[in-house]
């Protein structure tokens, strides 16, 4: 483990670049949605103003709330930012090791657990209904995604690529599929599609806006938060979205400028980070912005039925096809 690299990565990427990028991407998204709706929209740095304003506001805690109500946003932020120690944000992740894909999936689920823990501890019926919806959403979207990741990791393990069950192995797998095993490319596309649908559900906008349903539940899970807690609660949600997008980028789009230029060093890392930010932006353009502008909200039963009746059979077909193909080829 390279101590210097780890510390530099922690301070620069996790504590500076990711927060600033999350606010910037929100601003760009709002501007794009506004232009799609034929209005002017707020300036791109509006989320920075919002964040600073929220931190300065008074925090109102309902009397029925328990202590964990205040801890939940901080836990969410910690878990979300911790994920970046294992998921590469352009440059290599400092703590990546074998078996880390399982830990990353566990981190995402833990985030969802903390995300609903706060509202449930607040004592408000709106937050309770929002938290129930978020739990239904989480159980619906994670199953296909975990199955896909498991199938791909099994394939990497079978082909003896990299450390078993690690994110790096999946990156190498993608590169190998595109350069060597051409017959697996259609299956790769299906996996990419399933992963993007997972990202859209995790981001929670447009069709999938069930947890923070503003007009139905007055804000859903974030209705009782105010001031610093609300700032970090919303911030955590965007960070986990970027984490999800980074995972998908790491698995499915592993090409980096430093590989093309075959250089190492600080310049290469900076270029990698910038490239990664661009790719994440393009991914979120589809999973976050366009869906938000072009559609309304599902009801929770329609949301769950979409995942269980449409995405899950696709995933099962994908897994079966993958095994059959591998069995046939070898």
């Amino acid at each position, binding site marked *: 483990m390279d101590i210097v690299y780890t510390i530099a990565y922690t301070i620069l990427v996790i504590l500076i670049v990711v927060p600033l990028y999350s606010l910037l991407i929100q601003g760009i998204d709002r501007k794009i949605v506004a232009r799609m709706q034929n209005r002017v929209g707020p300036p791109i740095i509006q989320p920075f103003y919002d964040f600073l304003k929220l931190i300065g506001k008074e925090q109102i805690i309902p009397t029925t709330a328990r202590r964990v109500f205040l801890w939940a946003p901080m836990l969410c932020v910690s878990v979300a930012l911790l994920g970046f120690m294992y998921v590469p944000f352009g440059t290599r992740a400092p703590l990546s090791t074998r078996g880390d894909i399982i830990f990353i999936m566990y981190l995402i689920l833990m985030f969802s657990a903390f995300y609903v823990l706060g509202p449930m501890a607040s004592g408000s019926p709106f937050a309770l209904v929002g938290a*129930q919806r978020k739990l239904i959403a989480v159980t619906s979207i994670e199953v296909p995604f975990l199955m896909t990741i498991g199938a791909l990791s099994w394939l990497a393990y079978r082909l003896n690529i990299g450390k078993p069950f690690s994110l790096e192995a999946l990156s190498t797998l993608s590169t190998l599929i595109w350069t060597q095993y051409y017959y697996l490319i259609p299956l790769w596309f299906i996996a990419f599609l399933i992963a993007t649908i997972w990202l859209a559900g995790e981001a929670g906008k447009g069709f999938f806006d069930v947890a923070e349903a503003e*007009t*139905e539940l007055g804000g859903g899970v974030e209705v009782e938060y105010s001031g610093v807690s609300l700032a970090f609660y919303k911030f955590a949600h965007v960070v986990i979205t970027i984490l999800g997008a980074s995972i998908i980028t790491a698995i499915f789009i592993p090409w980096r400028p430093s590989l093309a230029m075959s250089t190492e060093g600080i310049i290469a890392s900076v270029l990698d980070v910038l490239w990664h930010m661009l790719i994440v932006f393009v991914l979120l353009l589809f999973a976050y912005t366009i869906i938000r502008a072009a*559609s*309304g909200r*599902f009801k*929770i*039963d*329609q949301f769950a039925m979409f995942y269980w009746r449409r995405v899950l059979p696709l995933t099962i077909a994908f897994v079966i096809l993958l095994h059959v193909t591998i069995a046939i080829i070898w």
Partner: protein
Amino acid sequence: MTEDKEFIRIPIGPIHPALEEPFKVTIVTDGEEIVDVDVRFGYNYRGLEWIAQRRNFINVMYMAERVCGICSFAHTYAYAITVENFIGQEIPERAKYIRAIVAELERIHSHLLITAVMAHNAGFDTWFMRLMQLREKTMDMLELITGNRVNYGIMTIGGVRRDIGDKEKRMLTEYIDYMQRKVLPEIIDLFMYNKTIENRFIGSGILSKEDARAYSVVGPVLRGSGIDHDIRRDFPYDAYGNLDFEVITPKKILGNVRGDSYDRTLVRIFEIVESLKIIEESLERLPSGPIHGKQMIPLPITLKRLSGRSIGRVEAPRGELLHYILAGNSEGPIRWKVRTPTEANAYALKVMLKGDQIADAPVTIASIDPCISCCDRITIIDTNTGEKYEKTFDELLRLKSER
């Protein structure tokens, strides 16, 4: 587990992003399914009927205008008809047609507003923004004719106060053309062939025909459940006896009636089409002549001699609106009563919301078009609760002169 479940009571209101105005709908839910509903008004007190007993007839006209912002012209229209029933003379023809034009323009902007609010409640923000943008053109037309976007001040007892000249006629004709050719096809296309609208509006808040009759609902809610009744055609007032328009029920457009939010919104959107036809026909038929009944001046003296009872009803954008006056040779009405359409429609929420999901509640509540400023006109505020309300300008002037 114990036998009795504790249901969750969720208050929608008085302050909620789904409502335009404060009222409280408490839904008792079992998970996501609504089991019972309780509706309560009273958060927007203004004491208008009590104040009206202490004013003269012209002042009550001002107050009638300010009962509501969205349907203010309908209130003044009903009031003017009620007083003109006493006087018993016909108002000039030109005034009748100008009244019809402004009333239909108001209907258009109100229907666009409530459809935008319903889209926003369903999470479809893009359609909300687009409809509000299209509504701006209608508000421009209203400002052109009356000088104001809300609370027009164009109605008076015996006629109207402003005339429509050639420039206004020309711009109105352009506006009608623009709406009929560009705007309405887009709205109808988006409404009838969009997956989000189908998912959220169909099946939510069903009101059957028998229930609609039993609960005496009015307006688009009544027509959306399949009953063909419209005050403009059945009890025609002013110019509507001569105008040719159709009363919209979903049966005429879709062929079958479900009675849900989709049908109600369908009725409203196609009523916009009919309103444009009415405005076009009124502009063609606009006869020349005075806009104000000269024989009704001097008005205050005539009004002081009125006595008896009179009821006047109009078709406001939200339904049937009723004004009642009891006059007895006095300066002002002895009793003035207003019955707004939302009072009747809100009570039917009990039936509409049962069995639906929580996600349907804001869409259904918006689909009856609640206008709570119309509902709360009664009562006085207690000093202990510290609630404040705004008095009319006349009241403030009176306070000043009393000290």
